[in-house]
């Protein structure tokens, strides 16, 4: 039978590990700085969605259909498409919950997104708030969304 001291150490180790995993799960930003071209082109219309929010297959489809981008023409020159596409592919989400491309390649239709924003968590009227308006507007509540950080501590609901 192991001594209580070892048991405690193992428990602590396990706790630390799960805390680290949790921290990673809420930090979906790229490893390293955001590609300036991505910021310049994509973040003109919306926050620079962290590449880890979608799997590579979704990013690839989005970058291949910018002329019809969720109801708007977001087309770019070929060199920019290539540069941004490559960077997204490199930093795309790979772990379990971001593995499957969501319907229409919408982050907001991912199973994990819907689960995290169920009506008991986010009241329906909050989506219609003038400061929110769209589920695409992550930064309305997630204050560090532009940096890819979605920690619960950083949530501020608009009044």
């Amino acid at each position: 039978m192991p001594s209580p001291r070892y048991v405690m150490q193992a428990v602590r180790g396990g706790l630390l590990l799960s805390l680290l995993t949790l921290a990673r799960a809420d930090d979906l930003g790229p490893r390293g700085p955001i590609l300036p071209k991505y910021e310049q082109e994509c973040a003109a219309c919306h926050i620079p969605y962290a590449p880890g929010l979608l799997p590579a297959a979704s990013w690839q489809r989005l970058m291949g259909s910018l002329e019809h981008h969720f109801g708007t023409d977001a087309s770019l020159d070929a060199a920019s498409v290539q540069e941004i596409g490559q960077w997204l592919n490199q930093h795309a989400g790979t772990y379990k919950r971001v593995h499957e491309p969501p319907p229409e390649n919408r982050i907001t239709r991912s199973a994990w997104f819907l689960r995290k924003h169920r009506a008991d968590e986010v009241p329906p009227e909050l989506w219609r708030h003038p400061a929110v308006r769209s589920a695409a507007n992550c930064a309305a509540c997630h204050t560090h969304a532009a940096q890819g950080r979605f920690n619960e501590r950083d949530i501020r609901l608009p009044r």
Partner: protein
Amino acid sequence: MKALILVPAGLAALLLAAPVHAVTATEQLADYTRAAGAPADPTRGQQLFTRRHGHEWSCSSCHTTNPTAQGQHASTGKQIAPLAPAANPRRFTDAAKTEKWFRRNCKDVVGRECTAGEKADVLAWLLTFAH
């Protein structure tokens, strides 16, 4: 000999590093007007900007009807900086950027690319706002 080669190389690097399309809004208005072959009309520009053209959005859906005010993207909700150069001196200082946004946004709003004359009209209207 080396210096002789390096000087032109340095000059070329300087030229390449400088923003290629740096212009002013007034210069771009002149370019569009020249391409249109007719004078620009700010009133026509305002109408084009504020009216819908058989599609879901007008320019003002995002930019509001007051181009000196801050706008908001109609679908994502993101804040959009004012469009009139008087309120935002960074607007219309890069011809390629101007062309990119006219191309995409006219397709969204008008359903096709805008003509040089239409771009001149809109720019002429945006330039009527004073500092």
